[in-house]
């Protein structure tokens, strides 16, 4: 429960906000803030999915592909063949459950490959990333059900923001205060030690992958509603990892919190808007992201080196 690393991004976020206001006083207007947050909703859910898997000591490169495939598949199953559907013609109300189920299925596929067949997670999920991306058939238009959550506004605030807030609060409480949430850290920290402590490691990992898939599908749904495209754009997986690393999630498992991850997402989002506001060319912005990732890693290294007492942890590969 190191809180320090979690809070380290708070001053950074404040500094970014102040810079934004200095450039343009309208930066902190309710309208702008809501717009800013809404843009981050899909990314935040994808990061949460990835973070859960990373904490449990595994990795999943395919979640953005899941986010693209799930809404497309749901749309295909629901829409009549005339509007580009697959001709199955499921009732329209089933769009959301089908979308989430598709996400769970993708998570189950990864879990099967990694946990049952013991394939290396990095390579296996690279495989599913390519596979799922290839299976994603774009449809011309999405059923209204699928777009609802990404578009609706509740009490003056977009539904997606409400949803993400709710999910993050739930995640923070679950991973911080529940025995079963803590078992993710144990499993990612040392699998044998977790097993010896009586944790059913296989079950924990399976559920983590399933949850990751469902969260990814939900993120895809929000993106579809917001932009009309199938899920997040390709290459989003790099942003997901960037946000997780900046948010202090350990890629070697067992470390990091959803709050830190959320701060990582906000830092990325704010950096993006402030730089755009300052008139920086959009093509340069990824370079800044890269620098942030390296800075976060360097910070973690320095922390590990100057931590009181022995022994220095091995340099992660």
């Amino acid at each position, binding site marked *: *429960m*190191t809180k320090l690393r979690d809070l380290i991004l708070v001053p950074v976020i404040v500094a970014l906000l102040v810079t934004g206001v200095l450039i343009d006083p309208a930066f902190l207007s309710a309208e702008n803030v809501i717009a800013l947050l809404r843009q981050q909703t899909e990314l935040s859910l994808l990061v949460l999915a990835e973070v859960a898997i990373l904490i449990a000591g595994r990795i999943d490169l395919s979640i953005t592909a899941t986010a693209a495939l799930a809404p497309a598949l749901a749309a295909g199953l629901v829409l009549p063949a005339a509007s580009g559907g697959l001709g199955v013609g499921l009732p329209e109300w089933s769009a959301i459950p089908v979308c989430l189920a598709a996400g769970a299925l993708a998570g189950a596929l990864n879990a099967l490959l990694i946990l049952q067949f013991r394939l290396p997670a990095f390579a296996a999920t690279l495989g599913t990333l390519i596979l799922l991306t290839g299976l994603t058939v774009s449809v011309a238009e999405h059923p209204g059900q699928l777009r609802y959550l990404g578009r609706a506004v509740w009490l003056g605030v977009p539904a997606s923001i409400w949803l993400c807030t709710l999910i993050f609060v739930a995640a923070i409480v679950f991973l*911080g*205060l*529940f*025995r079963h949430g*803590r*078992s993710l*850290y*144990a499993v*990612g*920290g*040392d699998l*044998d*030690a*977790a*097993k*010896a*402590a*009586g*944790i*059913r490691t296989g079950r924990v990992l399976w559920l983590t992958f399933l949850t990751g898939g469902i969260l990814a599908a939900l993120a895809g749904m929000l993106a579809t509603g917001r932009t009309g495209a199938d899920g997040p754009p390709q290459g989003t997986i790099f942003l997901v990892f960037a946000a997780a690393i900046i948010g202090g999630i*350990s890629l070697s*498992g*067992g*470390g990091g919190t959803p709050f830190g991850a959320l701060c990582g997402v906000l830092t990325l989002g704010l950096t993006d808007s402030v730089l755009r506001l300052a008139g920086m060319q959009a093509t340069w912005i990824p370079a800044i992201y890269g620098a942030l990732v390296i800075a976060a890693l360097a910070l973690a290294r320095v922390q590990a*080196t100057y*931590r*009181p*007492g*022995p*022994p*220095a*942890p*091995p340099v992660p590969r």
Partner: protein
Amino acid sequence: MITASAHGVSKRFGPTAALDGLHLTVQAGEVHGLAGHSGAGKSTLVSILTGLTRPDAGRVRFDGNASPRLGDREAWRRSVACVHQRPTIIPSLSVAENLFLHRQSDGVLIGWRALNRKAAALLETFGVAVKPSRLARDLTVEQRQLVEIARALSTGARFIVLDEPTARLDGPAIDRLFASIHVLKENGVAFLYVPHHASEIYDVCQSVTVLRDGKHVLTRAVDELPQQELAEAMGGVVEEQPVGPTEREPVVAVEGISLQTGLGSLQMGLGSLQMGLGEIVGLTGSEGSGKVALAEAIGRTRCLDGSEIACLPRHSALVPQFSIAGNITLSVADRLGRFGLVDPRRLRSTARQLIEEFGIRATGPAQPVHRLPAGEARKVLLARTLAAQPQAAVLIEPVSGVDSDTRRSLLNSVVVAASRGTAVLLVSGDVDDLRVCDRILVMHAGRVVFEAPRGWDEAEVLAAIEGLAAIEGVTEVEGVTEVEGVTEAEGAEVEGVTATETAAATKGAAATKAAATTKGTTATKAAAATKGAGTTKGTATTKGTTATKGAATTKGAAASKGEAK
């Protein structure tokens, strides 16, 4: 009443039988020792008794009931708690959470404050001075060990397995551990105790079972088993080699080594080291004494003729994708053909020759190494290091964790290499491994504190490892110095606050424990250096407050930084 039992338990790993039809019963209120050299099957048995490995045959019973399914971890945890040899502390979690892993709360939500309080109380009971909120990765190795022990003893299980719990503890901590064990034992808890040194059996156990090569050798009450018989039951002692020449042509000469380790807080020094043609120099010391760091530094220097020193580092490994031939010839690749070409025939013949020379049990040069038993893999590693017949070689813990036969074979190969002229620096924490050496050096807290030629006195060496002989102001305490042919040396009463320190050497067929009682404000630490039939134990010391402090600080520093990689 029988608390835990194993009936005809067998386990095979590939072609080797790790356990063969083993029977074991542990009674309530008994500490049952499990002795045997490494490779005898102790770890496999522990793993089966704690439900981490499924036996190929046989059953485990707790309180007369069949053991739970392997997947039912909850049920296993209720039946048995274990301090594993391999640390099972999760570095990224706090001490409190590690103590109560997977039982963090009684209710639904975890109350972190209550958990920390509970952990603090538990730590105090076992005398562990650690803040519950600290991350486990920030603890010293010893503190981690204490946390694990406290966790095992606190689970409420009626059967507790302690697998080498003292390996990383010092005297007072060991005493506290033994005291805790005693209390729980009186309350009817059953223990299976795997000792770090066989002599510990005489300190805590009431009965003992000896294993050898996976088979049951004997089970007996400790009172009826003299040390010599125990040593014989465990088997395998390396015979001493004849004394070599005293004048040797120097091969390696290093002067004024000084090392900075960790963050530079510890300086290590060695005046100079010379190794002669065909000489085997032993280097020993406790964990954290700096012996490995020193050996690694020497390994990076060159011989007097400019050739490189061959090194077998501590955690070296084989290339898993290669065959035995591919691995074993890595160091002699230049002899396999011209211009870097590898001639397959020469590769095979060279490998075959080395396999025979080093006594490697294998189907042939083409056998892949990834399924090779650990002992045979070690032989391949040693062969790879020595194949080129280097001028000098540094071998770090080359025989740790192998069975007695393999150990003998490995040490024999070292002797053969030396007889061909290779100067060897043999590093081992186990003094028994160093009997083949022409000369022995002992390190303590970063310095070489003791040096002796072949024929060294084991008690002196052990005392030096503990850093005792090196400290000034050594006074002898009446009653414990040089006791010969005695079964128990007890006594050593010190009064007052004078700084006294003694290395009490006890020689004799069976022997052993010096209990030093102290009155007054003196801080006391007791241990007895004993030279008996192959069994050994630390050294009896009584120290004044000042002396203790000084020594303790040095030791702590070394332990923390010395071998941090």
